[in-house]
C-alpha cells in the first residue's frame, strides 16, 4: 500500500495538525479531533456544526469559517467521531442562540450526535442530509445516504446564521435545501483505506459502479466502463428525475471529484452536464467543479443538483471565507 502516511493509525491526527498549521482562521480544540473557527463561539450567532468520519477531505473542516461552519468534529477514517468530542464542539459553537447540527444520514453520526446533544445541554437542533438518489427510499433500511450535496446545505445554513437568523429559521432553510438537493456518484476504482491497505470494493479493470457511496458502500449497478458522456447522462438523469426538475426550474450544479480523478476529467463531465441541463431547459445558475466530498483515493465523481428559489440563490451567493471556499 503506497500512501503518504506515517503510522496509518495517526493519519487523522497528523492531517489535522497540518491543517491548522497551514490554514488561517481555524484552530483545534485541545486533545480533540475537532476544528473550530478561531473566533468561535460567535456571540449572538446560531452555531452551525457538523461531524463525521474522515477520508472525505476537504469535507468537513475545509468548510469551517466565516459564513459557513462554526466547527466540525473529525472521526477516524470512515468512522463517526465520538459523542464526547461532538458535545465539546456543540459547546464551543454556542454563541447563546443555540446550535444546529447538520448530520449526514449515517447511523453512527446520528447516534453519536444524539448522545452529544444530551451531554452538551445547550439549545440544540439537528437536520439529516440524505441526498444520495442511488438508494431508493425504503423503510427497511436506514434510508438514503448523505453525500456531496451536504456542502450546499452547509453553505445556505451557514449564510442564514451569518445573517443573524434564529435557530428555527436556520433549520428551516437547511431542511429546504435538503428537500431540494440530490446526488449520484460513480466509482471507476475502489478507495483504499490506510487500515486495510487494499481496495474496499473489488472492481476489475473494465468495471465501474454506478451509485457508489462515499465510504465505498455498494451502488445500484456494476457495468462496463462507458464513455464519460453516457455516464454523465445516467447520473444527471437520475438526479433530475429525483428532483422532478422541469422546464424553467433553476438549479446550481456540482461535479465533485472522489479523490483520484484529475480535474481535466471533471470538466469533461461538466461539459456534458451543462448540455443535458440545457436540453432539459433547466436554468443553470452556476456549476461547481472540484473535489468537495471525496472518498480517499477513489477514482470517479458525483453529480449534485440543488433546485434554487430566490432565497436559496441569495444564500448560496453569501460570501464565505474558509480553507476550501473563499469568495
Amino acid at each position, binding site marked *: 500500500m503506497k500512501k503518504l502516511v506515517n503510522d496509518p*493509525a495517526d493519519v487523522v491526527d497528523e492531517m489535522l495538525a497540518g491543517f491548522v498549521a497551514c490554514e488561517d482562521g481555524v484552530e483545534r480544540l485541545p486533545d480533540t479531533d475537532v476544528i473550530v473557527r478561531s473566533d468561535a463561539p460567535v456571540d449572538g450567532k446560531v452555531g452551525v456544526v457538523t461531524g463525521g*468520519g474522515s477520508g472525505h477531505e476537504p469535507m468537513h473542516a475545509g468548510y469551517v469559517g466565516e459564513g459557513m461552519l462554526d466547527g466540525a468534529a473529525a*472521526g*477516524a*477514517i*470512515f*468512522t*463517526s*467521531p*465520538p*459523542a*464526547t*468530542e461532538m458535545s465539546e464542539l456543540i459547546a464551543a459553537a454556542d454563541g447563546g442562540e443555540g446550535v444546529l447540527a447538520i448530520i449526514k444520514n*449515517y*447511523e*453512527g453520526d446520528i*447516534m*453519536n450526535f444524539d*448522545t452529544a446533544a444530551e451531554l452538551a445541554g445547550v439549545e440544540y437542533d439537528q437536520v439529516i442530509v440524505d441526498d444520495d438518489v442511488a*438508494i431508493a427510499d425504503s423503510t*427497511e*433500511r*436506514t434510508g438514503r*445516504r448523505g453525500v456531496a450535496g451536504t456542502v450546499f446545505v452547509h453553505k445556505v445554513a451557514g449564510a442564514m446564521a451569518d445573517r443573524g437568523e434564529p435557530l428555527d429559521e436556520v433549520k428551516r432553510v437547511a431542511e429546504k435545501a435538503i428537500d431540494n438537493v440530490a446526488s449520484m456518484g460513480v466509482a471507476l476504482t475502489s478507495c483504499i*483505506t490506510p*487500515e*486495510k491497505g487494499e481496495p*474496499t470494493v473489488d472492481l476489475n479493470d473494465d468495471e465501474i459502479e454506478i451509485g457508489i*457511496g462515499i*465510504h*465505498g*458502500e*455498494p451502488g445500484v449497478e456494476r457495468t462496463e466502463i462507458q464513455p464519460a458522456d453516457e455516464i454523465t447522462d445516467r447520473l444527471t438523469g437520475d438526479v433530475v428525475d429525483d428532483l422532478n426538475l422541469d422546464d424553467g426550474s433553476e438549479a446550481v450544479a456540482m461535479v465533485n471529484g472522489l479523490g483520484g480523478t484529475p480535474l481535466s476529467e471533471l470538466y469533461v463531465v461538466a461539459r456534458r452536464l451543462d448540455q443535458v441541463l440545457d436540453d432539459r431547459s433547466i436554468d443553470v445558475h452556476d456549476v461547481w467543479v472540484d473535489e468537495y466530498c471525496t472518498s480517499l483515493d477513489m477514482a470517479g465523481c458525483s453529480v449534485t443538483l440543488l433546485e434554487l428559489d430566490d432565497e436559496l440563490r441569495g444564500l448560496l451567493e453569501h460570501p464565505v471565507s474558509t480553507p476550501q471556499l473563499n469568495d
Partner: protein
Amino acid sequence: MDDTDATTLLQTVLENVADRVADEREYLTELDSKIGDADFGANLHRGCQAALEAVDELDDPTPAEYLETVGKTLLDEMAGSSGIIFGMSLMKASAELESGVTPETLVAFTNAFRDNVAERGDVDVGSKTLYDILVPVADTLQASVEMDADEDELIDASARMVEAARRGAMFTAALRAKRGRASYTEWRSVGHPDPGAVGILIILQEIHSTAEA
C-alpha cells in the same frame, strides 16, 4: 464473587480480549469490507487498546466502575456506530453491578446491555446487527440463572452463551441487512455474517476461556 476477585477477573478478560482482537483485526475489517466500509477491525482494536490504558489509571475500582470506564473509553476511542453502541450500553449496564457481582446482577447487566443496544440503535432482531446475537446470549444466561445455577454452573452457562452467540452470528449471515452500512448492500448482504456480531462472539469466547482457566 467478591468485588476484588471480580475486578481481577475482568482485567484478565480485557487483556485476553484485547490480544484476541489484535489477531482478528484484519478478519473483522475484511468482514466489514464485504458489506460495510472496512473500519470495524480498526475500531474494535483501537477501543480495546484505549480501554487497557484507561483502566490502568483506576485506583482499586469496583466491577461497576471498571466496566463504566471501559464503556466510556469505547465511546470516546472506538467511535463509529459500534463505539457508541458498545460504549453507551456498557456504561448503562455497569450500574447493575453496583450492588455486587452475583448470578442475578450478571443477568441484569446482560439484559441492560442488550436493551440499550436496541434503544440506542433503534433495532430489533433480524436487522443483521450485533443485537441479533445479544438476544439469544442474554436468554441463555437468564435461563441458567432462573434454574438456580451457582457460580460454578455459571461457567458452563458461559459455554452455552458462546454456542448461542456462534449460532446468532451464523444467523446474521443469512439475513438481509436492514440497519447500518450493510443495509446499502440490500440483497447482496445475504451470505455475509455481521461484523459486529462476530466481534461479540469473539469477546464471549475470551470471557468463557478466561472464566474456565
